């Protein structure tokens, strides 16, 4: 943000080691797999990364705020269920493909509402967001099962699932939506008053209160944004499947948090950016895709992903020494 002028590419890379890592795995898989370096594969990577990626954008805001949201996977599933189910409601029977519109709108509203609910609880009760959303993660999943009655919904209308196959020139629509949202959230965070206040609230909540920032509603807005993005991600995922399943999005919260932290956002708040998050999302996407292409046995995939996560953390520590002024603490 400040002193942009004296940042050399090397120094930038030191501060964002994740992008160095992205480059390394990119080169590695290009050399190791015949199928990796291919623009259609890049499309795949972007589309696949968009699911986690969209939520990660919202998580970046929430985490810079000093909060966390563990309920995103369940929110995604509920939104997907609404997006698919509402299309077949009798009242929209005559709408043709327009029936998709109220369905998607309702799904997104559900996401926003759940986010608002989480945010409101965090604001009013003062209970830690980790706890509130840990509860919500269970509860919203329960709602999914209540709503779907355990089974999957599928879209009668193939127009819905064809949407995911659309592309504009060489770019798949899903990837474009993701990149567009990335740009918007990036601008929001770095240029808007709300975005700057996000850093303020996370960096020093007391100072933010003292400065008259209405911390409660502010946090609630960020929870609504992540609710919206999780729902959007669910809608897009359901277009890829033409269906919604009740177990959709299990464990996604952990992957999202991983991507965001890999991107340099601090769990304690006040620090992080979208550029880093994008790097974290791509790193995971490329690793997943590359390991598929290289046929790494499933059992080893767990070990490799876990170890890389820790390795990146160690690298980050090396480059960004904690600011304890050389004190041995």
């Amino acid at each position, binding site marked *: 943000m400040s002193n942009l002028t004296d940042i050399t590419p090397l120094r930038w890379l030191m501060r964002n080691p994740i992008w160095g890592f992205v480059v390394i795995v990119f080169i590695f898989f290009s050399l190791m797999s015949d*199928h990796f370096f*291919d623009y*259609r*594969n890049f499309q*795949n990577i972007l*589309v*696949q990364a968009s*699911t986690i990626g969209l939520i990660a954008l919202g998580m970046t805001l929430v985490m810079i705020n000093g909060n966390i949201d563990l309920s995103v996977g369940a929110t995604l599933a509920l939104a997907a269920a609404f997006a698919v189910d509402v299309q077949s409601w009798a009242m929209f029977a005559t709408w043709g493909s327009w029936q998709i519109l109220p369905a998607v709108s309702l799904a997104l509203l559900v996401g926003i509402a759940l986010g608002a609910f989480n945010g409101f609880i965090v604001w009013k009760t003062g209970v830690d967001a980790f706890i509130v959303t840990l509860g919500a993660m269970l509860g919203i999943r329960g709602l999914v*099962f209540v709503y*779907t009655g*355990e*089974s*999957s*919904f*599928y879209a009668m209308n*193939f127009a819905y*699932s064809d949407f*995911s*196959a659309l592309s504009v020139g060489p770019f798949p629509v899903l990837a474009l939506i993701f990149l567009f949202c990335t740009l918007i959230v990036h601008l929001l965070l770095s240029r808007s008053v709300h975005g700057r206040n996000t850093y303020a609230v996370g960096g020093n909540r007391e100072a933010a209160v003292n400065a008259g920032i209405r911390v409660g509603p502010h946090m609630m807005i960020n929870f609504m944004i992540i609710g919206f993005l999780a729902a959007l991600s669910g809608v897009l*995922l359901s277009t*890829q*499947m*033409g*269906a*919604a*399943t*009740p*177990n*959709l*999005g*299990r*464990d996604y919260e952990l992957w999202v948090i991983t991507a965001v932290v890999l991107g340099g956002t601090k769990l304690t708040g006040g620090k992080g950016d979208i550029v880093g998050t994008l790097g974290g999302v791509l790193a995971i996407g490329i690793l*997943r*895709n590359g390991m*598929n*292409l290289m*046929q790494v*046995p*499933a*059992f080893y*995939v767990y070990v490799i992903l876990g170890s890389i996560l820790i390795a990146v953390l160690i690298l980050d520590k090396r480059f960004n020494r904690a600011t304890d002024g050389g004190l041995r603490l």
Partner: protein
Amino acid sequence: DTVRIGITQNNVGIDSYQTTYEQAFIAAADANPDVEVIVLDAGGDVARQISQLQDLIQQQVDAIIVWPTDGQALVPAVRNAHNAGIPVIVTNSNIAEAGMDFIAAFSGPNNVQQGIYSAEMMCEALDGEGQIVQITGMPGYTTAIERQQGFDDRLAEMCPDVVQLDIQPGDWNRERAQRTMETFLTRFDQIDGVYSGDDNMGVGALNAALSAGRAEGIAFIGATNFAVGYDAMARGEYWGSVYQSPVDDAEAALQTALDVLAGEDVPKLNYFDTPKITQENMEEFDRPVF
């Protein structure tokens, strides 16, 4: 010349069945010099399975075998493969009705039929009368849903005097099933039969009943005969199950794919036989390897 076949499985490692399936599949492929396989695992996540299908399409394999994490949600992805000219063989649990047009063939057991078998065994064990409980697999997964469906429908039809007291999930987890059964035992003074979505959970339920000293009067019926279930049957504690061999399952899938690629006229649905196994006829079967 060699054919390249990609397979994406449901969730290897979650239980021995799937692991044994994978090993048998790789062994069968290795035995055939003309086959090269790409083995992937979706870890139970539909979205990841869809990505894997995309990756396989992008690698232009000759055929794709898929063990659906969810029969409904995979339809568009299977359709993509179909449109890309790659034949798709569905294995183990079937894809939804809407996707049948896009697959070359299905090979696997019939989970609904298995539920029906279990219901029939239950009626037989209880002489058409009694109170039972059911412990299902992980909620929301096709195999669990289909078995429950087959069981519930057939039970109601065949012996309406058998009352189902409650149905709770055991998540394919023996300890979880054991806990659920313990609570059932507290709640119901009279339990005559237990149906579990697989033997792993069935043995958990049996454990609970044994500890409570109430195993004597209860008929335990499961599905997917596991070695522990087989042994319990041999001890006379376990009434019956459905015998399903992952090795047959895997070999059938590979063979179906090869037949499709060879241009043979393959029927859409290829069920392999999953017979009832009970204390009486168990000698006819080998002890499961898992």
